[in-house]
């Protein structure tokens, strides 16, 4: 089976977020970039498929040259080939369209992308790819079994899960639960050495489809002072929640 895993390059989850140039640009200074966690769960799940049936795994990223260390890391984890589409990712449709154009020229059986990136939080890329390519799709995927051409997958819904079955080719939006946090692999030295020899193709772009533009960022408003309540005076807490905050 041919698997494609879509990789977004995002600030580490512990990053403090700040902006420069009049709050128009994210400040990358001192920020460590990582594989988007939702994508990494998908990559790890793809590795399990590969270990079982010798599938090939390609990873694809829409980004500029500074994402290449992250792509090398995915190769060190075990992907066979990386593709970087040389374009600054500014809009989810742009990213999804570039990836689907690549897929339509290079057939894949299974495409896995994170349900969302933890920086843009669009929740769009896997869904748009599936619709553009006419493939079956589920997102918020927390369970995946593939036998032959048949997929049985679980998706998280409000207050539970739903189990669906469908045929390949398909697009899966991954998240935690597809594999566990403890299943994530840290590349070993052998993997890192091998990754240097693996192909990383760069594809130039003729046309970007940009229909949206992020023009300004805001930090959330500072929280007001906290009110401390003595643990022996819980009636006061109930009083404040009822009369001041009006939430109970």
């Amino acid at each position, binding site marked *: 089976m041919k698997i494609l895993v879509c990789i977004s390059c995002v*600030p580490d989850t512990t990053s403090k977020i700040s902006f420069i140039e009049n709050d128009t640009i994210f400040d990358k200074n001192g920020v460590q970039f990582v594989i988007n966690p939702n994508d990494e769960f998908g990559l790890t799940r793809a590795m399990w498929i590969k270990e079982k049936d010798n599938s090939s795994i390609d990873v694809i990223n829409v980004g500029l040259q500074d994402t290449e260390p992250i792509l090398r890391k995915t190769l060190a984890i075990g992907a066979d080939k990386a593709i970087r589409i040389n374009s600054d990712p500014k809009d989810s449709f742009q990213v999804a369209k570039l990836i689907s154009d690549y897929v339509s020229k290079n057939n894949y059986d299974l495409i896995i992308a994170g349900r969302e990136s933890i920086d843009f939080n669009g929740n769009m890329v896997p869904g748009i790819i599936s619709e553009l390519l006419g493939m079956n799709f589920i997102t918020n995927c927390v369970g995946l079994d593939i036998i032959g051409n048949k997929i049985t997958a679980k998706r998280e819904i409000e207050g539970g899960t739903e*189990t*669906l079955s469908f045929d390949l080719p398909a697009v899966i939006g991954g998240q935690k639960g597809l594999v566990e946090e403890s299943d994530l692999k840290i590349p070993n030295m052998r993997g890192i050495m091998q990754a240097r020899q693996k192909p990383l193709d760069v594809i130039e772009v003729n046309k970007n489809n940009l229909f949206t533009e992020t023009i300004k960022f805001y*930090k*959330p408003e500072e929280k007001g002072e906290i009110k401390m309540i003595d643990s022996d005076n819980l009636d006061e807490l109930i009083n404040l929640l009822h009369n001041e905050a009006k939430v109970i």
Partner: protein
Amino acid sequence: MAVLAYIESNKSKPKKNSYEIISYGRGLADKLSTELIVLSFNIDSVEDLSNYGPDKILNIKNNDLSNFNIQKYADVIAQACNSLSIDIIIIGGSADSKYLAPSLSVKTNSSYVSNVVELPSSLEPFTLKRSTYSNKAFSDITIKNEKKLIGIYNNSFGIVEKKSNPELISIDIIIPDSTLTTDSVEHGSGDISIADADIVVSAGRGLKGPENWNIIEDLAKTLGAATACSKPVSDMGWRPHSEHVGQTGKPVATNLYIAIGISGAIQHLAGVSSSKVKVVINTDPEAPFFKAADYGIIGDAFDVVPKLNEKLKVFKAGNN
């Protein structure tokens, strides 16, 4: 040219976030001086929808739409948009709506912007404010496309009552076959899901083990709240993933969030930052959560939580 607000139903009733979606649609239609059409599937009575100002209601009753299916739902919504000449679609932030929105945007040639928290600040260029960086920031985003799909962040815009006398309309639709089969739906043990809850009671490693969660569940029951947990608790398997709140888990945008024995890692704080009122109960006065909360109690969960629960029971009994 009109605005369409798509709302979900549950057991033939509008879902809780429907009123916020319609309120947003009304506000937007007023800004654009156009009409608001509400689209729903299989709702028994559409009467209370008229409290929020729709001009028209299209409630499609069809047994083939009784259970959610992304392909059927997205296709039928797109058909409705086409026959009603819709330029802007409003959709909620539920799991199902976020699942179908990207497909719907492609089917209707709309540009989709998710996590929107306010009405557009400008119509030319069309500018929306949305939550981004996992709730650590907001951004202004402009849409150049005439056709737009706006996904609203749950519990951000609020409900605005505005009585109207909507016309009930109908259209012809064709329901496509689906290549997806729903085998089963499993509901979790909790009575209320995090997305539907007004109050969430959440606990962390301070609880020391899964066997101690009864005090959390008891407090949640008294408050009619959903239960949630921190990332380490879900990673250790004390609680299911579906309860994990934070950057790689669920965001929580609720009216009241009570954090018990959770120190407040930056990822967790980001996940709950949209909640309106936060209460922290922790033994450690240096816990970062105290800097991000509205009310704080320094104390041991095993002492404070059962006492608080008993007092809340008395308060609730007195209020009914």
